[in-house]
């Protein structure tokens, strides 16, 4: 046994030293990340003491959440209605966004619109719209159409229009050139190229992207009520404010279940759409 060891060691001595796992620039980056993290903790006044004190209160709150209950049957129906409203906001917002995003996506696609300036301007405008959060848009729309779910739907439509248009333009840009050239060589005009060469390729992908946005929008729609733009968020923030933890927990549970259900349905639909023969 010892012979083998010695042989192994002797062999090891001839080997080049193992490569260093940590390079100097790597260390600098890791150090910078850590130092800024610690600075952040200090500046934001985050101390272990505060966290521990808060956690004991948090466990209290979580204990008070059980069992989740809607309080009364009356509240139960109100909450269910609010949930329906939330879904309506998400659905309406996404649909409106998809309708507006479709032409915008074509405008922003490099292979459809040749004008560089137009292409650039559309992209930048969409980036600007996208960088403002849905909740801020909701506040702005509340000033325009008043409190209520309509403002929420418009806010979701606003943010998503930009995000969807960007995704759509990227899809159009990566579309297969074969069908397009086919239509062109058969004497098709510009519109015919889009209708018969592009649309059949990209529409199923668009539909699946819109569905994906709908999924994530059900999540945003649940919180949009916090600023007064309709849906279940209004009740949730109210229940948390008055420390009715059982009802708050019930509302959170309602959101979790509906989001999970929509995820399942939308995943099914998406795979059905993508599986459909194109043409």
């Amino acid at each position, binding site marked *: 046994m010892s012979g083998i060891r010695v042989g192994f060691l002797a062999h090891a001595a001839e080997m080049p030293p193992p490569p260093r796992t940590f390079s100097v620039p790597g260390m600098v980056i890791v150090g910078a*990340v850590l130092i*800024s*993290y610690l600075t*952040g*903790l200090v*500046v*934001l*006044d*985050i101390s272990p003491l*505060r*966290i521990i004190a*808060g*956690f004991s*209160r*948090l466990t209290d*709150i979580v204990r008070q959440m059980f069992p989740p209950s809607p309080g009364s049957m009356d509240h139960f129906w109100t909450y269910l209605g609010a949930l*329906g*409203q939330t*879904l*309506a*906001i998400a*659905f*309406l917002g996404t*649909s409106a966004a998809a309708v507006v995003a479709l032409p915008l996506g074509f405008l922003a696609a490099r292979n459809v619109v040749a004008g560089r300036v137009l292409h650039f301007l559309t992209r930048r405008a969409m*980036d*600007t719209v996208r*960088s*403002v*959060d849905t*909740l*801020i848009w909701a*506040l*702005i*729309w509340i*000033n*325009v*159409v*008043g409190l*209520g*779910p*309509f403002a*929420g*739907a418009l806010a979701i439509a606003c943010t998503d229009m930009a995000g969807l248009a960007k995704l759509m333009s990227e899809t159009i840009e990566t579309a297969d050139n074969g069908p397009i050239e086919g239509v062109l060589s058969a004497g098709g005009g510009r519109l015919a190229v889009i209708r018969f060469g592009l649309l059949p390729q990209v529409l199923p992908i668009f539909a699946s992207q819109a569905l994906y946005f709908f999924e994530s929008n059900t*999540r*945003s729609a*649940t*919180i949009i009520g*916090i*600023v007064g733009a*309709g849906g279940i968020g209004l009740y*949730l*923030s109210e229940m*948390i404010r008055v*420390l009715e933890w059982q009802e708050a927990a019930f509302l*959170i549970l309602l*959101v*979790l279940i509906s*989001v*999970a259900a929509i995820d399942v349905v939308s995943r099914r639909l998406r795979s059905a759409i993508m599986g459909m*023969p194109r043409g």
Partner: protein
Amino acid sequence: MAHIVATLPEMQRAALAAAYDQAVAARRRQLLLGFSVFLVALGIAVIGAEVNPVMFWNKLGNFTSYFDRLLTLDAGGRVWTHPSDWFWGIKRWLRLLGETALIAYVGTLSGAFIAFCACFLASRNLVHSATLRLVVRRVLELLRTVPDLVFAMVFVVAFGLGPLPGVLALTLHSAGTLGKLFTEVVESIDMRPVEGVRASGGSWLSQVRFGAVPQVLSNFASYALLRLEINFRGAAVIGFVGAGGIGEDLLIAIRKFYYQDVSAMLVLIVVAVMLLDMISERLRHRLLALEGGR
């Protein structure tokens, strides 16, 4: 040039044409059915969301005039004619914007750390115990489904006002989303290095440390950067519920119709988001190049 197109015998052709027509009709029916379901759902949603097209049309003028007011100084004149009046509160706003960025940064990094620890436990190729995997996955799913603002509202009650609840909310939510993405990365790694470490007698920890981690780090960093972009947008509004950052000032300005302040803060946020997106995109391209060179 003479056209020579060989056609099939009439009977065969008719059968094929009929089959084709049928297939097209079936597709069309399916599409029509889907579309009508969509329309019905849309109708219900329109009623549910209290949409009022007439009111919308009448008030659409408010939307444009709102932006007109946003771009007008209280003293009159367009905002860009007196930038120093427009950005009168720049010192405070920049400090708040910095706080927002820090909240996003600390939250993302802490979330990434939790996700990093959890993802190896949730991966099918590294953990054999189905129960452990299931538990970790369910917890991550819970963290990801509860919106960060809901976490923030609860934490504000537990931890008090200020950036701490915001950081914790972003931490938990990012842990959930990143945990899922990280797990997917880990499940698609090359298993040979892991098996190599195991074959030479390495413990589970060293299998992960020397077999898996070197393969996934750059991907993880790229996902974390993407999350940082998202979290910055989130941190900008997390102040709406009193959890720190520029959100609280923005909310007050919008609610109290301080138009020029709203536009100034929005400009700052948009510029900051775009800057961050640009930097992060650069870094991510670098990381991807690193991945390709390996």
